């Protein structure tokens, strides 16, 4: 068993140990892959307007893949249905495709691998760590689910898509595709909010789109596994980088009976914990591995 550290690593040094021990690529691989994934989605939207190569038409609210496969944001579809309007089949099929995909693949993988806002809030979290801003306001993590209910009920009452005036995720998506500078104010506000007001405030507490993907992907297949609890030396790097650190606690430090798979629906499957862990405690796996716990003998 690895010796437990007497003093945990500082938040601003999260990942430093892994970089020194395991190399640069190992300490950043999933972060880089995620950025590539997020940027390539933006590129697929932009290739049409820029070079007339139409891969994705539309934006993050709804789009057409290769002019044939519709893809629709489940939340906006739900809002539209809540108002009492039945959209055309294209929209509904698009939403079903998205729901099925993210229900099967990985918990909240839209948030970590597709959503453009993730880059903004990750940047705010990074800056927060570097500046050493620690204790700030706290919000309940379940606020997003409350917000989700309020939005749907509000859409039903008001007859409009309540969330869409202020939706900063869709707004940021439109900035890339349609170039609307004024909307950047919203994005800047989310950045400031995450940096100064609440840690992981937007994605981790408020975003109702993330809440929808959390519910959708609650039983998805790919999950982060704790390969070996015994290797953990409590450097706290994973807790420092994780946008939903509450999901790590039980799989990593729980009792013998607690599953060593991060099954919590709030985990965004970003793999950053895998990157920064100098002891290789984590790995991507399926939700079924090691369901029957075998005691580690050492």
């Amino acid at each position: 068993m690895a010796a437990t550290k007497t003093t945990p690593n500082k938040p601003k040094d999260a990942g430093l140990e892994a970089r020194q021990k395991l190399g640069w690529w190992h300490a950043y691989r999933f972060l880089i892959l995620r950025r590539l994934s997020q940027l390539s989605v933006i590129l697929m939207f932009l290739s049409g307007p820029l070079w007339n190569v139409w891969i994705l038409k539309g934006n993050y609210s709804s789009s057409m893949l290769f002019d044939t496969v519709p893809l629709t944001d489940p939340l906006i579809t739900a809002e539209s249905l809540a108002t009492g309007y039945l959209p055309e089949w294209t929209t509904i099929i698009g939403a079903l495709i998205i729901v099925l995909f993210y229900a099967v693949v990985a918990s909240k993988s839209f948030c970590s691998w597709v959503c453009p806002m993730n880059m903004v809030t990750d940047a705010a979290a990074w800056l927060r760590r570097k500046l050493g801003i620690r204790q700030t306001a706290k919000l309940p993590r379940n606020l997003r689910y409350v917000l989700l209910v309020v939005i749907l009920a509000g859409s039903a009452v008001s007859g409009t898509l309540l969330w869409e005036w202020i939706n900063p995720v869709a707004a940021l998506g439109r900035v890339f595709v349609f170039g609307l500078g004024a909307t950047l104010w919203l994005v800047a506000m989310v950045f400031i909010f995450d940096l100064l007001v609440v840690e992981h405030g937007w994605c981790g507490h408020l975003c109702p789109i993330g809440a929808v993907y959390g519910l959708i992907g609650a039983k998805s297949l790919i999950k982060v596994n704790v390969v070996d609890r015994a290797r953990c030396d409590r450097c706290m790097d994973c807790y420092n980088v994780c946008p939903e650190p509450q999901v790590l606690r039980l799989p990593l430090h729980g009792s013998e009976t607690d599953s060593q798979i991060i099954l919590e629906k709030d985990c965004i499957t970003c793999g950053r914990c895998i990157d920064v862990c100098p002891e290789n405690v984590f790995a991507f796996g399926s939700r079924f591995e090691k369901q029957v716990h075998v005691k580690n003998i050492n």
Partner: protein
Amino acid sequence: MKLDPNRRQFLKNATRTVAGVCGVGVILGLQQHQANAKEGVALRPPGALPEKDFLAACIRCGQCVQACPYDMLHLASLLSPMEAGTPYFVARDKPCEMCPDIPCMNACPSGALSEELKDINDARMGLAVLLDHETCLNWQGLRCDVCYRVCPLIDKAITLENIHNDRTHIHAKLIPTVHSDACTGCGKCEQACVLEEAAIKVLPMDLAKGLLGRHYRLGWQEKQNAGKALLEEQHPDGLRPSLDARMPEGLSEPTYQHMKVKPNQKVATPSRAADDYVPRSTTVDAPEHFPDLELNTKGVK
């Protein structure tokens, strides 16, 4: 530099307060800015559902904007005159070119731009209204006619109607006149208007159109539909039509009597009820008491 914990706490709180206040300020500022953002009348693309339904149906994907070959549709931002993410166009800048295949509508995945629109000429994006008679050149008796000439449905959506020119007395004014049964609201007329500020503008339908009361009937139309006049032609007194039709159910109009008026004789109007009615008096008695005007001018003490 080592900060005293109290001071650190103070700085932290101060920063947070400033950030919060800035956030509120930005939101309020944006709202104000949006209220000021009147770049022209914003219109929906062809086939759009009525505004309230449209806002429930539009999923803000912008595919109509990308489908428009003339690039005249915009996607509203936070500061646009429309709800963020919804499509609109401003006719004065770029009007709808009325593509026969309606690509924007066909791109719409949600039905907010309804497939029910089969012919672009049936689109009702708004209604052109010749708003300003004081600047419209044709209203001054000149021959501009540009709005009429550019109209894709010339002589259907806009016609020129003659009226008398009261200034010269010998000319006609040819007034561009929009007909709502044909106007699609494409905005070509507004864009082409030669004035600095267009005298003809496309307005959203609910702003542009009046609505008759449900009960209202136009006599000449009813007459045409029935093939004959619906009221009795003449009343016995030679002036008024019979009003039996307007009396409550079961009653008929009282018979009119010719007034027995002789020159230089004061009489009251005869009652309709009885022919033999004799008025008691035709003059009003002088009132016995007048209010104290003195008191009124000085005010009540």
